[in-house]
C-alpha cells in the first residue's frame, strides 16, 4: 500500500523512543510528500481532497495541499504513495491530559507535582513544569496526537495558565505552540485548598471567584482608561496591582485570556454562566469535563460557551454522571455548542481518535464533526483557532499530520505516518 524512496528518519525515532528518550530530532527536516490518500485540511470552505497531496518543504512547512496536478512533488522529497483508503489528517489535539507533566503516576519524583496550597494560583504557568523527555509524549505522538494542552495540576480553585505544545522536540521551547492559552478554574467537590476551608463548598468557590474577578475587572477598567476618583482610589488600585493573584486575572477580564472552567454537573455549569452574566463582561469562556453539559446544552449555546468533553466514555453511575448517555454529545452538537473531545487520560491519550470513534458509533456525532472535535475543535472552543493553524493542514504552517491506513476512527485503521513540527516519522511503532 505504501512505497518509499529517499532516506527516512524512522530509525532515529525508533532508537530514541526505545531508550525512553525524546526523539533525536534532526536539525533540518527532509522534504516529503504524502500522495494518494484522502486529505482532510479542515480549513473553512475546503473539502476533503481524494487522491490528494500534502507536500512539506525542507523547512518543515506545508508547501502545498491539493490534487496531484496542483501539487507537483520535487525530486528531492521523500514520497509516500498512499492507498485511496488512507486518510491524511491534521495531527490530533488532546485537551485534558497530563502528558509532559507526569511520567509515572505513582512516583512523585517523575511529576511536575500539584501546586495546591492556595485557592488562587492564577500566576502559575503550566509551561514551567513541562518536560519533553518522556515516553508518554512519544506514545501520544505515535498515536497521531501532535499537540497537547496542559494546565497546572492540582485541586486549587484557580489552577493557573495552560500551555499548548507539540509532542515533539527536545525541549518545551522547541515544542511550544502557545502560552498562555487560557486561565483554568476548578469547580466542584474536588476543590480543596489549605487557605480557605469554605472553598470546599461550591457556593464558596463561586463567591471567591466572583470576588477575585471583580477586583481584576477594576484593574482592567483602569487599564482601559477609567480613572480612580481620588488618591484613595489610586492607592486601592495599586494594592490590587501588587497582588499577583489579581494581576494575573486582568487579561481574563480584559477579554484577552479565555477562562476554562472544569466542571461536570449541570448546576455547576449554570453557576459559571450566572457568574459571567453578573460580572457584566462577556469574556471568552469554555467548560471542560462536562459530564452533564448536555443537560444545559441550550444555555451553553445561547452563551456561546463551548465544551471540552472528557472523558468521552462516561460511566453513568455517580451524582455527576448519572444523567450521561451515549447521546449526550449529540444533544450538545444539535444545540450548536462547540465541542472538543479529550481522553482525559495521559498514558492512553494516544487513543484519542478512538474516542471520536465511539461518538460516531453511538450516532452522537457525524464523522466530520468527530474529526473536528479532535483537531480544530479545541481551538474553536477556547478561541485560539482564530490565531493559530493548530488542528488544520494549512499551507505555510509547520506540518503536524497523521496518516491512517483505513478507518481513522476505528481499530481497523492503523497510524502509518506522523509528522510533528514538520518532521516526518514514518511507520511509528508504539512501544
Amino acid at each position, binding site marked *: 500500500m505504501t512505497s518509499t524512496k529517499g532516506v527516512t528518519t524512522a530509525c532515529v525515532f525508533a532508537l530514541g523512543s526505545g531508550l525512553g528518550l525524546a526523539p533525536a530530532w534532526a536539525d533540518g527536516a527532509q522534504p516529503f510528500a504524502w500522495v494518494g490518500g484522502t486529505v482532510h485540511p479542515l480549513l473553512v470552505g475546503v473539502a476533503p481532497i481524494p487522491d490528494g497531496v500534502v507536500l512539506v518543504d525542507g523547512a518543515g512547512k506545508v508547501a502545498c495541499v491539493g490534487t496531484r496536478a496542483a501539487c507537483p512533488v520535487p525530486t528531492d522529497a521523500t514520497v509516500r504513495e498512499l492507498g485511496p483508503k488512507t486518510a491524511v489528517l491534521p495531527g490530533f489535539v488532546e485537551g*485534558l*491530559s*497530563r502528558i509532559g507533566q*507526569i*511520567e*509515572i*503516576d*505513582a*512516583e512523585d519524583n517523575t*511529576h511536575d*507535582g*500539584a501546586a495546591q496550597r492556595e485557592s488562587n494560583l492564577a500566576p502559575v504557568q503550566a509551561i514551567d513544569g513541562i518536560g519533553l523527555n518522556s*515516553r*508518554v509524549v512519544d506514545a501520544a505522538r505515535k498515536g497521531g496526537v501532535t499537540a497537547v494542552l496542559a494546565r497546572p*495540576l*492540582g*485541586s486549587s480553585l484557580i489552577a493557573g495558565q495552560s500551555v499548548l505544545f507539540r509532542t515533539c522536540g527536545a525541549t518545551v521551547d522547541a515544542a511550544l505552540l502557545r502560552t498562555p492559552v487560557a486561565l483554568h478554574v*476548578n469547580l*466542584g*467537590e*474536588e476543590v480543596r485548598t489549605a487557605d480557605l476551608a469554605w472553598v470546599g463548598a461550591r457556593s464558596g468557590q463561586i463567591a471567591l471567584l466572583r470576588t477575585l474577578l471583580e477586583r481584576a475587572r477594576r484593574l482592567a477598567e483602569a487599564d482601559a482608561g477609567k480613572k480612580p476618583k481620588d488618591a484613595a482610589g489610586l492607592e486601592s488600585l495599586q494594592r490590587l496591582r501588587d497582588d499577583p493573584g489579581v494581576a494575573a486575572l486582568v487579561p481574563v477580564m480584559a477579554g484577552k485570556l479565555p477562562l476554562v472552567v*472544569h*466542571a*461536570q*454537573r449541570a448546576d455547576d455549569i449554570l453557576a459559571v454562566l450566572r457568574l459571567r452574566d453578573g460580572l457584566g463582561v462577556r469574556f471568552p469562556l469554555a467548560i471542560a*469535563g462536562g*459530564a452533564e453539559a448536555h443537560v444545559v446544552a441550550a444555555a451553553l449555546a445561547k452563551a456561546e460557551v463551548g465544551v471540552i468533553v*472528557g*472523558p468521552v*466514555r*462516561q*460511566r*453513568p*453511575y*455517580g*451524582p*455527576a*454522571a*448519572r*444523567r450521561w*448517555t451515549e447521546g449526550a454529545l449529540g444533544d450538545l452538537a444539535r444545540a450548536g455548542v462547540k465541542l472538543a473531545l479529550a481522553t*482525559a487520560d*495521559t*498514558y*492512553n491519550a494516544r*487513543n484519542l481518535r*478512538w474516542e471520536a*470513534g*465511539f461518538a*460516531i*458509533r*453511538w450516532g452522537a456525532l457525524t464523522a466530520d464533526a468527530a474529526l473536528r472535535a479532535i483537531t480544530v475543535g479545541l481551538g474553536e472552543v477556547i478561541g485560539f483557532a482564530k490565531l493559530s493553524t493548530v488542528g488544520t493542514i494549512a499551507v505555510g504552517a509547520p506540518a503536524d499530520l497523521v496518516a491512517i491506513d483505513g478507518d481513522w*476512527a*476505528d*481499530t*481497523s485503521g*492503523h497510524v502509518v505516518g506522523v509528522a510533528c513540527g514538520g518532521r516526518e516519522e514514518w511507520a511509528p511503532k*508504539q*512501544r
Partner: protein
Amino acid sequence: MPTISRSYAAQIATVLAALLVACGAPIVSLPGGAPPPTAQPDAVRAPRLHPATLLRGATLWTATGEVLDATDLLLRDNRIAAIGKDLAAPSGALILDVRGKIVTPGLVDMHSHLGVYPMPPGKAHADGNEMTQPTTPMVRAIDAFDPEDPAIARAVAGGVTTALILPGSGNVMGGQALYVKLHGRTVGEMQLPGAPRAMKWAMGENPKRVYGGRGTMPMSRMGHGWVMRKALFEARELLAQQRAWDDGSARPGPRPQKPELEPLVALLSGQVSLQVHCYEVHDIETLVRVAREFGFQVAAIHHALEAWKVPELLKDNGIAVATFADLWGFKLEAWDASVHAPRILHEAGVVLALKTDHPVIDAHEFIFEAAKAHHHGLPEQAALQAVTRNPARAIGLGDRLGTLEVGKAADVAVWPGSPLRVGAVPERVFVDGVQVVGDGRNLQAQWSAGPGTDARGVCCD
C-alpha cells in the same frame, strides 16, 4: 493521586488508583472447614420463557479457532445443544433470524471487582480490600459482593456473561474469589454452581506501599517474600498435622484446624486456583520460586505487564497471563508494558487472557480490550479467545464454558458486526440460555433498577 478528571470522575479515578496501586485476591469457596455456600440451581435464577432458542444462520466465532459461516446454533435449557446447518427447531423454541450477525461465546472476565467495588464509588462501597493485615486468605469476596451493583447490568450489556470476582491487591494474600454468572437478583442466584475455588495474591508494589506506608511489614519485596513464606510454613505444618491425623499416625487431640489457614492448606493440597497480581519479571520469578519451594501451582498472573519479556518462564511453569491490551505507565511496575505483549505471549504459546480489572477498565467495554489487542497484532480469533476460551481455562472453567461447542454453557453474544471494532456492543446476550439482553430490554438492569423503573434501559432518569 493528582488527577485531571474531577468530581464523580475523580471518585472513579480514586477507586482506580486504589486498585491500580493495590490489587488483590480472589475467593471462591469456603472458609475453614465449613461447607461451601450452595449455589442456586440455574432453574431457580433464570426465568426461562422458552425451553430452547434457535439462532439461525449467523457466522459463529466459536473461540475454538473456527469460524463457521451461515450456521445454526441451538440453545436448550442452559447448554449449547447443537451446532450445524438447517437445525430443526424443537417444539416451543424461540427462533431468531441472525443471518449476517456474528455470534460468539459470552465473554469471561477473569479479573473483575464488580460487586465488591459497586457503583457509584464511595466509602460505603469500598469492600474489595481488607487491608488490616497483609495476609487475609480467609476473607471471601462472596461476603462483599453486591448483586445490585448497576455496573453488572452494563457488563452483561457489553457481552460479559461470566466473571471471577477478586479481592483487591492491597494484601499479599487478599482472599478468596467468587465465580459469578452475570444474571440473577441475589448472590446465591449469581454464584456459579460447582465452581472451583480460587484465591488472590498480590506481588510487587501494592502491598509494600500499603503496609510499608504504615511502617509495618512488608515494606520491601524482601519482607513481602517472608510474609508469603511465613504463612505457607504455617499452612504446611498444619497440613502435615492433618495428614498425620487422617492416616492415624498422630492424633494427639481433635483434628487440627485453623480457619484462617484453611485456604492455604487447600492450596497446598492442589484444590485452589491461585490468581496472582504480578507485574514485573523479578516478581514473577519470586512467585515461581516460592511456588516451587512449597509445591503449589500458580494458575495465572494478572496485569503482568512485563510477562512479554519472559514467555518461556510462564509457559514452562504452566502459568496463564491475564493482562491489559494497552494500559500502562501509572506506576513503575507498569512502566515497561508493551502493546505487543498479547501477540508475543500468544505466539509463544502462553495461555493469554485479557481482563478488565473493573472498574479500572469499565466491564461494559471488555470487548474493546480485545479490539485493541487485535489492532496491535493479536490475530482476530486469538483476540476473541483471549476474552472467552482462555480466561475460562485459566480459572478452571474450560470444560464448562468459553467456547461455542455442544455441551458448553449457553452463554452467547450476538453482535451486529465484528466485535473487534470501536464501540461494538452485542444486540443480544444469553446467560445459561436466558436472553438477558435483547429486543431493547436488559433483564439485569430491570432487577437492579427496582420497581417502578423502566426495564428497557440500563440507565434511566
